[in-house]
């Protein structure tokens, strides 16, 4: 009984802590921009962003943009997970392949990942296809790397335990390796999915093709700072939703296999 109440009070403490941080942050922004210390062309007052957010949610413009973005993000997320996990598992199984590909991927993540958008744009046009392709490229790499590292980092003792229990390869994978590797792999998922989401927004912004990214780009162009941050809040909420979905999925996997 004591343990349960201790856990609850810690949960409350954490939530309270978050609330305090959020309030302080909002208050700081409000004062900085309100006093003129920070230009209203660079940052908005949270109170204005809040008002603008509700105004936006009443417009069809926002919902149409959101629909395009959600459509592109969903496809990009699923593909990133598929490509990333398969690649990561291949990396794990064929160590030489991983040693060969990993440096290439890390180097790719620097210049090429961003600067190659004209290549995709000229081949696929200013369209969802370009946006999704680049987002998948960006999102699958951290997943692949962390999946490989997650499996590789498992203590040899677990493998020995599996062997001594005469576990089949399938049992080894499902009952020993996946649970042990889950934390690192899930971190990889978080990174990858966030990259894919940001990739979609960034490409929509750069190629002015549609969705929330394009909306934010237009508002940025006409110095509508309130509008820019209203859009960003919506993106952030989307990201939090995706991450919490991932959290629920992680708990389900854990409870089923551990």
């Amino acid at each position: 009984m004591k343990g349960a109440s201790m856990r609850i009070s810690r949960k409350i403490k954490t939530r309270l802590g978050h609330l305090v941080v959020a309030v302080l942050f909002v208050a700081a922004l409000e004062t900085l921009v309100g006093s003129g210390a920070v230009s209203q062309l660079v940052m908005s007052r949270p109170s204005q962003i809040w008002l603008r957010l509700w105004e936006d949610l009443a417009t069809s413009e926002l919902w149409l943009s959101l629909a395009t973005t959600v459509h592109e993000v969903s496809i990009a997320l699923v593909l990133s997970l598929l490509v990333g996990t398969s690649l990561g598992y291949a990396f794990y199984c064929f160590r030489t392949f991983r040693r060969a590909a990993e440096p290439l991927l890390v180097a790719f993540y620097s210049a090429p990942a961003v600067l190659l958008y004209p290549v995709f744009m000229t081949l696929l046009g200013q369209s969802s296809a370009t946006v999704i392709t680049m987002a998948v490229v960006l999102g699958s790499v951290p997943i692949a790397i962390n999946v490989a590292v997650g499996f590789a980092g498992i203590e040899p003792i677990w493998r020995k335990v599996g062997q001594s229990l005469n576990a089949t390869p399938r049992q080894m994978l499902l009952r020993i390796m996946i649970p042990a590797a889950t934390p690192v792999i899930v971190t990889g998922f978080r990174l990858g999915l966030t990259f894919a989401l940001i990739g979609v927004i960034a490409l929509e912004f750069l190629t002015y093709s549609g969705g929330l990214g394009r909306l934010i780009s237009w508002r940025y162009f006409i110095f509508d700072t309130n509008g820019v941050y209203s859009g960003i809040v919506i993106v952030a909420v989307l990201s939090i939703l995706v991450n919490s979905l991932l959290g629920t999925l992680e708990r389900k996997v854990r409870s089923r296999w551990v």
Partner: protein
Amino acid sequence: MSFSYKMARIATLAGLAAVFLCSNAIAADPIRVKVASTNKEVFDNLPLYVALHAGMFKKENLAVEITHFAGGGEVVRAIASGSMDIGMVATTAAIIAVGRGESLRMISAYSAPAYGILFVVQTDSPIKTVKDLVGKKAGISRPGSVSHTGLNAALQAHGIQGQVEAVPVGGSGDGWAVLKSGRIQATHHTAPDVYSLIDRGEARILFQLSEFLKNYQQGALVALDGYLGKNGETTRKFLRAVAEAAKFIDQNPAEATRIGAKGMGTPEPAMRATIDAMPAGFFRIGVPESKNFEASMAEALGSGALKTAPAYDKVVDRRFLP
């Protein structure tokens, strides 16, 4: 000569030397001015570089630092947040910023009418004149930009406005990439950069904005009210120097070419060609003309960037013009 006479001579010389040294010391501290401008390769940067390298700024005892930002938006932001002193921006960007409540002021016209912006097609394109654009798509940078206004002016002059779709593509590099994807058939571009494509036989100029957009002020110089209040004299000197530089470009195109090519990273032939084709009096420090101003206002309102436009007197501050 007598001892006292010698002393008097020495004293006079010493006194003169002291005055000379002191006045040099007082005059020796040049005033620092931080200038914000758009991309380095944009032709409108030329007077700033000429003023910097042909001594106009030095003559006014100004130490000018030019920082290049990715677009007019960034220049306006830098000025508005006080990190830069004077900016060179598209007129419409300045008007929109004032319309949003910024205490930005337009201290001078800078370049007019529209020049340096043009529309290109692929060399082997079946589009030979503006009329051939009917039913096709043309790339503009953003709705309400000068490329958009210029396209509309060209279409209107040929009576085909409404029959050509304007597609926002971003910069000239992006426009060319999208054109090659086949999604659009013409796109905006800028001189002198466009000569790089023309010289390689890849592109052909369809029309120049300057052919159709006459009452238009392209670039303007802006500064914050607060800065102007404290640095009025410096601002006057700055405008004087840039006005000199503008005259210099007209009178010494060869030297201007050399300075521009080196400073802005453009090959000399392309720079020379751009200078030669310049409309007379393109670079001019002076009062922004109200009819030009109205054109930019129409742009700001038409694209939806602003709901109500600020008055001329709210935007323009003529006090520092030479």
